């Protein structure tokens, strides 16, 4: 498990990018937390900078949309899903469960992409 941030630092509508290999984006979609691979499966763009609407995130470059619950693309140009990762909150800290084989975490480099309350 990798610590993401304090829950209060990830308010609804916000996202955080974890600088892992590959990077992971963690979203607060109206109170539900989701984590997916950050890089759009279509081209090199960061989904953590995407537009969040319900549990869909729209890629900021070509407007491919992914369902955060399943990782599946809901429209072109993306055709392949992003991987999803379980998220949990323990004692007010958000954790993401990443399968083994991932690089060591660098949580201090996690950056809220937009007006975080941090």
């Amino acid at each position, binding site marked *: 498990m990798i610590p993401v941030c304090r829950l209060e630092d990830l308010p609804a509508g916000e996202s955080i990018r974890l600088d892992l290999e590959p990077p992971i984006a963690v979203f607060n979609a109206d109170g539900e937390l989701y984590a997916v691979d950050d890089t759009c499966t279509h081209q090199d763009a960061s989904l953590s900078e*995407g537009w969040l609407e319900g549990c869909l995130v729209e890629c900021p470059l070509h407007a491919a949309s992914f369902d955060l619950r399943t990782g599946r693309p809901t429209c*072109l140009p993306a055709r392949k899903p992003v991987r999803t990762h379980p998220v949990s909150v323990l004692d007010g800290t958000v954790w993401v469960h990443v399968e083994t084989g991932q690089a060591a975490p660098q949580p201090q480099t996690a950056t809220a992409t937009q007006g975080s309350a941090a």
Partner: protein
Amino acid sequence: MRTITVIGASLAGLHTALALRAEGYEGRLVIVGEEHHRPYDRPPLSKEFLTGALTAEKLSLADAEEIAELDADWLLGTRAEGLDPPAGSVTLAGGRTLATDGVVIATGATPRTLPGEPLEGVHTLRTLDDAAALREDLSRGQVRVVVIGAGFIGAEVASSCATLGHNVTVVEAADAPLLPQLGARMAAFCADLHTDHGVTLLTGTGVRGLHADGVPGSGQGGRVGWVELADGRFLPADVVLVGIGARPATDWLTGSGLALDDGVVCDAGGVTALPGVVAVGDVARTAGRRAEHWTSAMESAAVAARNLLAGATVQTYTALPYFWSDQYGIRIQLAGHRGPHDTVRLVEGAPEDRSFLAVYERDGTTTAVLAANRPRPFTRARRELTREGGLAAV
């Protein structure tokens, strides 16, 4: 329809073919492509492909499974040379004809070139083969690159060449890069991006000609050595990239009966005046506008496919124009219809910080939004602009 022929095997042609199948078309589907390659993505050619960060395999627009599912007959490396709509036939290079009920014209655009004898080391950039040739030419150690035209292709190639450590000069006939697209203030921002990265930008001067290495004006072929500017200067050059725009690839349609006017004239649904013929992508002049934008090429394909199968315009494509450009690590995004007299207003950030969101306005109404390295605010503004009905035709 029993046979539909798609002429052009790139983004728009592929997506029209995919949409035809998605709409339930089960007849014969023929895809004719002048290039030998299966459909691939062009935007990275001036960027990641040129710098070596992406290989050709990574550019593919459809994997083997998707190609198989499409169930199309591919005629690659085959140039279409004529269209005879009343006869329902397409003429291919070599004189072969194809009988077809429906035609999708997706032949794209061809880069403009400078007059004069072809010289080695002078490139345009449109196709994968173009990009591979340029990349090869850039792989012989540090060279002097002259980029003619500071539009998006020129700027991206200049950026990639700077990344590769070459000595780069950009020549632009206008007083600043992208002046017609962005206006003076934002054009100045784009000019700064070049000079920030050690690229020499020469504006306000056109190019008179290219000369072979050796005595300028000797008129002999060979390898390029000099770029002669309209103001009389000679720039030494080992490699030249000519990025002065493209013209729609419609020459093969002369005599077809289709209206041609800077593109294949069609309505907002991609439907031409001839039955069973639609046009998509860069070659299409749709409702009076021709765009060379990736997103509209892809999205409008589904609309044209539907209309082709319906035999009439049952749907139109109305999305705002949108494009992006990656230069010197800065992602520039623009959406909307900017008019030549629109004013620009910064909403957040600052050009000096290389990160900002700005809006173009006319009579108090937003006409377009521009961002540099501000993807999420840009998406928000783009959505608002779309919701507001984004503007009225210029």
